[in-house]
């Protein structure tokens, strides 16, 4: 047999002795890499909006907002309040989880007033006649350093001090 080039070990490099598993390890790792975009198709990493509708005798509240986010992304949360009975002074109150690590870019239409309600953000929507709606668009951006798993976001709809609807959801923010 002709001289074997330096540093080549025929058993290892030609006959692949002890290297049979390498190809399977490589394939398994490749499958792992390919699994990430596949999983992403199912909205695991965001940020497709989810719709939740909550109904109370006096009003209903429909929330359209994603629950999975990634750092830096812009998103919108839409709060659709429909008065089933007259709401004299409606308030939409958001728990701290809505603003934690997020930049609030804009809120349209501007609420009559904004205030703190025991550490929560309270938007006064005002009078909503029975059968009419008020849609509040809030645009956020996830701060790039914001990472969270299972962070709670709570929403309250009140008429004056009367609590009509309470809703809590959990969000994940991927780095």
């Amino acid at each position, binding site marked *: *047999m*002709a001289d*074997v*080039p330096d*540093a*080549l070990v*025929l058993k*290892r*490099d*030609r006959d*692949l002795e002890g*290297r049979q598993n390498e*190809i399977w390890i*490589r394939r398994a*790792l*490749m499958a792992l*890499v390919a699994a990430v975009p596949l999983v992403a198709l199912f909205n695991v990493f965001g940020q497709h909006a989810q719709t939740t509708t909550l109904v109370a005798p006096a009003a209903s509240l429909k929330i359209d907002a994603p629950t999975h986010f990634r*750092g*830096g992304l812009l998103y919108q949360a839409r709060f659709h309040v429909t008065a089933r009975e007259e709401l004299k002074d409606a308030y939409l109150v958001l728990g701290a989880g809505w603003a934690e690590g997020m930049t609030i870019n804009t809120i349209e239409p501007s609420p009559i007033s904004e205030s703190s309600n025991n550490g929560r953000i309270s938007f006064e929507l005002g009078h909503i006649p029975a059968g009419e709606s008020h849609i509040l668009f809030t645009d956020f951006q996830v701060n*790039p*350093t914001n990472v969270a798993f299972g962070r709670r976001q709570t929403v309250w709809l009140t008429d004056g001090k009367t609590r009509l609807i309470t809703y809590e959801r959990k969000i994940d923010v991927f*780095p």
Partner: protein
Amino acid sequence: MDIVFRGIFLFAFIFLLTRVIGRRELSSLEPFDLILLIVLGDLLQQGLTQDDYSVTGAVIAIGTIAVLQLLVSYTSYKFPRARRVLDGDPIVLLQDGEVIERNLKRERITQEELAAQARGQQIASLADVQWAVFEPSGTISFIPKKQ
């Protein structure tokens, strides 16, 4: 601080990707590969520094990548077992003018591609080759038969 973690994660991910994707894909730099490379670099940058446009951020990111690369290089140099994992081993594709089908198949290389590579090194026929070795770098070395 998070740039360092991002840097470590992305470095590990790209390293893993280059190891599992196969050497063959990395050895050629066709126009499409070049575009992919640029796109990949851009995507990496976004994930690494995001909205940080500061010089400090860039220095942290570059420093992290440089240290990791040095670490990999040193580990590969110092520990032969680690070298096998980090760099891979060569694979003999041809001996005495006879191709080793099993090894070609493993690396997804056809005989035609092997012959084309040989022609690139002024070797007209694979029968004239004593050894063809697929190197960890993704290139194929041809050692002609002695006359």
